[in-house]
């Protein structure tokens, strides 16, 4: 387990617990009471920390080195039935965007999501979860397949942004994202979008237009990362904490502003402390959300989706 700077007190508790458990195994002394007490104080500590997280700390949790990425969710939530499909049929297969079919509780779903790499080599291969136009076009191809077969689409969003490269511009990154937003707005099948890590700007929205848009508790979603915002508006990289606060990018803020539909609680301390628990509860959430959408009239579903996004914004006149 790796620890963020603000997780230092938790690290201390974790290590103390580990030492006490090791001691209990090696000696005949009954330490179960001491272990239970330690566990209780760790739970208390995690609870109080979770209640007082700053926006910037949540941004850090969304990028925690032990936080699971899309494929880990898909494999676990579908209990190994996830079957990946590749390619946009035009240029190539974008490894930063994954998609395919799988089962949750007896219903088939078409899953999509940006994929980050789990080690140095894979981070390169996955391009740090920054999709190129072909990634968005693969996603669109698969969404249209789901629409054709009248099956629901689930998008797991975790990206620091769409890739700002030279070839991405040549192949129309802007058009690819615009096309996805347009097509998703009118896709005639239920669409559930869940921010599981970072929801950065157009790169996130390119698979983010849904009937239900949810955020895990410790994720962020905004038009720009706090770091880039700091560099542009403050002309310095040193104001990322302030930028994170100002952007109102946490799940709580996004829900309060009516820009998302719900928050999915994370295991105590964050997903990285209990990924299996998160996978199970997210699968249940998807099952519940889909069951609420599955019998809806499609015309009405699409109309309401369009109306929902058209109502976003605050103006004065």
């Amino acid at each position, binding site marked *: 387990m790796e620890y963020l700077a603000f997780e230092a007190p938790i690290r201390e508790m974790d290590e103390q617990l580990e030492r006490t458990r090791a001691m209990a195994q090696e000696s005949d002394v009954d330490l179960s009471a001491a272990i239970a007490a330690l566990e209780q104080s760790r739970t208390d500590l995690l609870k109080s920390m979770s209640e007082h997280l700053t926006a910037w700390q949540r941004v850090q949790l969304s990028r925690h080195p032990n936080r699971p990425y899309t494929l880990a969710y898909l494999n676990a939530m579908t209990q190994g039935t996830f079957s990946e499909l590749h390619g946009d049929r035009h240029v190539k297969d974008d490894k930063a965007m994954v998609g395919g079919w799988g089962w949750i509780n007896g219903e088939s779903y078409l899953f999509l999501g940006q994929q980050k790499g789990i080690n140095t080599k894979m981070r390169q291969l996955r391009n740090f979860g920054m999709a190129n136009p072909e990634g968005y076009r693969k996603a669109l191809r698969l969404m249209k397949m789901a629409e054709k077969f009248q099956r629901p689409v689930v998008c797991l969003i975790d990206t620091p942004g*769409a*890739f*700002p*490269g*030279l070839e*991405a*511009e*040549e*192949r*129309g*990154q*802007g*058009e690819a*994202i*615009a*096309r996805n*937003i*347009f097509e998703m*707005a*009118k896709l005639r099948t239920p669409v559930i979008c869940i921010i599981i890590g970072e929801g950065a*700007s*157009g790169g996130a*929205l*390119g698979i*983010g*237009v849904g009937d239900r848009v949810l955020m895990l508790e410790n994720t962020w*979603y*905004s*038009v*720009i990362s706090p770091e880039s*915002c700091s560099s*542009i*508006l*403050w*002309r310095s990289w040193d*104001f990322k904490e*302030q*930028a994170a606060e*100002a*952007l*109102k*990018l946490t799940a709580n803020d*996004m829900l309060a*502003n009516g*820009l998302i539909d719900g928050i999915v609680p994370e295991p105590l301390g964050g997903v990285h402390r209990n990924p299996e628990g998160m996978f199970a509860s997210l699968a249940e959430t998807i099952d519940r959300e889909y069951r609420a959408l599955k019998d809806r009239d499609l015309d009405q579903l699409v109309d309401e*989706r*369009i109306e929902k*996004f*058209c109502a*976003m*914004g*605050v*103006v*004065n*006149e």
Partner: protein
Amino acid sequence: MGWFKRTKEGITTPTEEKKDSPDGLWHMCPKCRVVVNTDDHEAALWTCTNCGHHDGIDAEEYFSFLFDNGEFTELDPNMTAVDPLGFEDTKKYTDRLEATRKKTGLKDALTSGYGTLNGLPVTIACMNFKFIGGSMGSVVGEKIARAIDHSLKNKQPFIMISKSGGARMMEAAFSLMQMAKTAAKLTLLDKHRIPYVSVLTDPTTGGVTASYAMLGDVNIAEPNALIGFAGPRVVKETIGKDLPDGFQTSEFVLEHGFLDFIVERKNMKNKIGDYLRLVGNQPAE
């Protein structure tokens, strides 16, 4: 809703200011540095008759030559931005808005209206780059949405002239969601088979490119405009080397297949009118 008649004199209101300073009577082309009389420059629709350079202009100027006789009815003329997040960086967003309104005399980064173009009823929305870099906040999104509603209701083509650095960062996720909002509205135009012409001018980048600007039945651009998703500085930092000549120009974007054609400003009105007559099977009288 106000009725505005923009006569030739009306367009040139800034001339009065310019008369105060003798330099204002002349315009120097920023590209070839040839100097012309400001009246001649306006008659050339703010383009250089020597080198073809297109000066950046905003809604007032575009409307003056796209609408017949420069006559149009403005939509939502009084809509202004609020500060939904209480945003403050080195400045308060509310102060920034106030200062920009004062400086530009504009309410926000988009003006919309309806009138006729070569006799065809149309709705046109145009971004104002001088208002916080033409950034897209709630007002821009809402005015586009309502302009599209006007097109839908009156079954008349929608023309969108983009000119923007992208998102209005001070409205954060509200700004981001304007991409979804405008694209979602455009699906309704599409469904009702109402023509949508997207005109991209210098510069069109970021979330504007990644939403309505790229979604026209036809996407057309003025010559040599900067068009892209990521800004050139960001792309340069990403690839760690200099960008090729002409990268992200209109000509580059046309060559890569994302524009239908490039049009010089002096031909823009007729090209749009001709296109609308073709798709609508409406021969000119």
